[in-house]
């Protein structure tokens, strides 16, 4: 009950807002903020309601939806989706807080964001593939408008590019789902029924094709090399709050799809694709970093690092497919899930920070900011914390994710771990170089008159970095929830 309420609360608010005249900008923003705050409360209730030690899937609701197709409205939370649901609520709330005083077509903006929030929450909760697909579309479509209307100079191009890519992804995803649907003895879209039956286990090449189709479908959203090209443009052109949600949550649709859906419904085929996934993971890990190293625009740089960070999710999937020891598999899956959460907080925070700097100076060129350490010490400290967190120092959430993913890789072959940690060294170089160019040095022209972070900006940045540190120091509560499900996934034998 709480779950359904939480999912639909933002959409209901959006519906209400439609009837409010657009000129009440302030009221609209306030309503949207409170609605997202309530949603956050709902997800926190869900978190406390989730019993560790109970079944993996809890809070289930299942009612007939399209009986002729065998599609049901069935939702629930498990150890992977619950943290992502909370992450969604946190970032949406902070995004609403960030735009609190923005008057540019506030009504349409708020409606789009609230609809998107419902879509996102629904995707993570859906236990029916058709429902999953529906929520997936609801979550993605508002983003085109957000980029296309509130975006930067080149928004038309960026939105269209993202549109084409994600359309292709959706198409492949739908094909995969339909394939599974038709191959079930009694056609059904139920995730758990398909997972239990594993219909394509003996289909040979058919199963692999279906898995490939889903892998690319989700992989475009994640994204991994070579399907990442939409991401830098979309991130750069999107308004700040859009980039935050895009990087913080929309990318996780792909990650969740891979870990929470693909390896459940097509375990055999995924295992056979293990080496391919591994190669793609490693390429993405490095490609994202190298491409980021060459960027002059801070936002573009952060966008490329996402490709690398999401490489760890792929790595977790690859280790799951290749390792023999279930406890190693579980480590890797834990790492992948925590990486998604951690990336949401850290990269979300990075994008907020870039947005605040851009809002003040009108530029995002790294070279234009220097000497932040002297003129804006708060920004400097926060940038430092986000940078140190993103490069995987212990004490931050990224470390919890990376040490498990790398330990998993070492469980397959220690050379694999060595390759992975080399990427950590490059990441160190990347983030510290950014830190050095922006925080150290003589004050640049843009920095001299720069006002330091204040009020709600501080609330946003500090709450994100605190969440990351909290997970970094006390990971057990989160891991206990995550392990509820990863334990099951690690022990899939077929």
């Amino acid at each position, binding site marked *: 009950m709480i779950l359904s309420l939480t999912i639909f609360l933002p959409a209901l608010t959006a519906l209400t807002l439609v009837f409010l005249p657009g000129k009440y900008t302030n009221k609209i923003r306030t309503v949207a903020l409170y609605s997202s705050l309530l949603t956050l409360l709902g997800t926190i209730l869900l978190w406390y309601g989730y019993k560790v030690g109970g079944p993996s899937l809890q809070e289930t609701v299942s009612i007939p939806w399209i009986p002729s197709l065998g599609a049901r409205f069935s939702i629930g939370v498990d150890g992977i989706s619950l943290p992502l649901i909370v992450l969604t609520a946190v970032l949406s709330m902070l995004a609403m807080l960030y735009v609190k005083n923005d008057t540019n077509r506030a009504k349409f903006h708020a409606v789009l964001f609230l609809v998107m929030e419902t879509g996102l929450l629904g995707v993570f909760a859906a236990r029916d593939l058709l429902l999953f697909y529906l929520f997936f579309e609801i979550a993605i479509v508002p983003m085109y408008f957000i980029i*296309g209307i509130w975006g930067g100079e080149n928004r038309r191009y960026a939105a269209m590019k993202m549109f084409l890519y994600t359309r292709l992804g959706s198409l492949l995803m739908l094909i995969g789902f339909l394939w599974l649907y038709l191959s079930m003895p009694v056609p059904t879209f139920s995730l758990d029924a398909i997972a239990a039956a594993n219909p394509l286990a003996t289909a040979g090449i058919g199963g692999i094709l279906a898995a490939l189709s889903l892998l690319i479908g989700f992989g475009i959203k994640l994204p991994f090399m070579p399907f990442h090209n939409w991401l830098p443009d979309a991130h750069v052109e999107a308004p700040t709050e859009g980039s935050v949600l895009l990087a913080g949550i929309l990318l996780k649709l792909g990650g969740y799809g891979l870990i929470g859906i693909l390896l459940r419904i097509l375990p055999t085929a995924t295992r056979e694709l293990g080496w391919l996934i591994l190669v793609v993971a490693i390429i993405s890990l490095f490609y994202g970093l190298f491409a980021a190293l*060459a960027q002059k625009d801070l936002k573009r740089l952060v966008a490329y690092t996402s490709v690398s960070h999401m490489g760890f999710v792929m790595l977790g999937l690859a280790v799951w497919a290749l390792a023999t020891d279930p406890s190693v598999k579980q480590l890797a899956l834990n790492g992948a899930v925590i990486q998604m959460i951690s990336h949401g907080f850290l990269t979300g925070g990075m994008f907020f920070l870039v947005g605040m700097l851009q809002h003040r100076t009108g530029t995002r060129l790294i070279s234009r900011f220097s000497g932040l350490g002297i003129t804006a010490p708060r920004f400097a400290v926060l940038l430092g914390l986000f940078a*140190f967190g993103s490069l995987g120092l212990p004490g931050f959430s990224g470390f919890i994710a990376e040490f498990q993913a790398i*330990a998993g890789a*070492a469980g397959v072959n220690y050379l694999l771990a060595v390759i992975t940690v080399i990427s950590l060294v490059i990441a*160190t170089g990347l983030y510290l170089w950014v830190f050095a160019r922006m925080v*150290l040095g003589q004050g640049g022209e843009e920095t001299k008159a720069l006002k330091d972070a204040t009020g709600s900006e501080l609330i946003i940045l500090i709450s994100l970095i605190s969440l990351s540190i909290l997970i970094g120091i006390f990971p057990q509560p989160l891991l206990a929830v995550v392990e509820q499900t990863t334990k099951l996934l690690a022990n899939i034998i077929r």
Partner: protein
Amino acid sequence: MILLFFIPALPLLASVLILTMLRKDGQKSAVAGVIATAFTLALLPFLFGKNVSSSVPWLQLNHYQLTIGLSLDMLSFIFISVISIVSLFVQIYAIGYMKEETGKIRFFSIFSFFIGSMMLLVLANSFLLLFVAWEAVSVASFLLISFYLTREESKRAALTAFIMIRVADVALFVAWLLVLLQTGTTNIPTFLNAVATGQFASGMLIVITVFFVIGALGKSAQLPFSSWLPGAMVAPTPVSALLHSATMVVAGVYLLLRLFPLFTAVPVASQIILWIGLVTALVGAIIATGQMHMKRVLAWSTISQIGEMILAIGSGSIIAAMFHFITQAFFKSTLFLTAGSIDKAAGTLELEKLKGFGRALPILAIPFLLSTLALAGIPPFSGFFSEEAILASVAKNTPALILFLITLFLAGLYIGRVATAVFLSKPTHKFNNASLPFFMTYPTLILSFGAADIGLVLKPILLLLLPSQNETLSLLLRLISVGTSISGLAIGFIYVKFFGLKNPLGRVQQIVERVVLGVPNITVQAVQSIGTLLVNLEQLFDDLVRLLVSQTFVLVEKLQPVEVAFDDGALKFATNTFTLSQITDKAENIWFSNPVDTLGNTIMLAGIRLKPLQQGKTYNYLSAILLWTVLILGASAFLLIIISVIR
């Protein structure tokens, strides 16, 4: 046990306290740091000779247990003693040194954090906690090296240092992750126990050892990871004094000492570290000989001295390594503090400009010359005893012995050169009569007495504690080593007197230095060019996608007239209806007027509402979405048909 907890906690608490409560007052924050370290020092007598250990689980992942905990044994006791003594004096010195600087709060807070992290590192009994402290030490050094925020060279130095150390850090990371996978725990004693009882497959053990060794060597600035350390001298001098003596670079030495049982199990590894240590000691000494900047001489000297410690570990002598760690900590911190004082008084550390500076501040001659004698290994100063112990450990290995003696000779040469130039030459410049604050002079003096005497005091104690490690040295070797040291010093003295500061080793030194500094630069350039290559690739990608996108736009534009015509039709219909309704209204206003009017208005309004959609961006998106949705539905229908046919 609770006492042990306070050792790292006090400096770490001081760091937090300075940041939170003493934000206004730089002087108080400095004192807070000193008090914390003093308390730590005061706790030491209560911990002497104790063997305590405690451990709590931090994270349980399946059967993998990650614990954190502290433990104390002889090794860690020696380390915390040296760290707290040296830190205390350096912190007191820093009160004077930092007096005029801005950013004192930041400095003293990070400084205490640095000390506390190092304490944590040597007390940790789990690899996890050790790794956390290890990284914390790296971060603290990064922040301290970049202390002068606006200086270009401190930016570069801090970056190089952190990235190179990070290579070592991730090697350690892999090592302990492998240990975790193998033993199921991060507990260090459990691991060493498993090593001692031979529970490891030898292949895996070699891999683990290699990664531990890379981690330790990188942290200790051994070849090929040396070049960051000389750069790090741009930090305020108290930082250098601590970084080079009791913290940071000796963390690697500590790790190797802690994991010493590994080298008994993997003899190859001890051979490897013996030679790396030896070559680094020699190369560091060669490079130090030609430096024209005082802190640079000292920095390369540190690399060389740490090399000697590693060499001692490689040749199996724990006691020699520990002994040299202690004496080096004292004489090197003294040398750095003196250098800092000279810097403050003279405004430069270029040897050329410092010739004969000793006359202006003669009091500095005492600590500097005492430490010089200690570094050169002249009896009865401290370095003599520890270097003798190292000599004993390599006595049976003739090539190593010869190279070590050359290193010893060069050590005398480079430090003799500096001492002669600064303190024993006639001034070539005029120096203003300088004076130093109390806080800077006395800590240096006290430390220098330590540098002078500690060898003599400690030797019997160490022998008592570790009797098995007592190796005697033949009289001949003893004489040769003393002779080498003295001749090194003497030649340094004579050379400066006759040839001034000209590079004594000439081209040899230059080539060695260029190679050692060049290798990392080439690596960085390689990484950068890969980045550029990838960006070009990305551009190619972009062009391709751009083409696709523009084609879609063309398609959408083509569809636009159709839509517009449709819209126009709707609008015309609405208008016509409106006109019709008006006529009707006029004709039959009594019966039909109100309902028809309303309908007409509504339809017209809808027509107007539609109008903005036919221009502008929203229209394009909507058309595109429509188009693609149709395509997708078509494609999936097609697929469905195919799949069902196949079935």
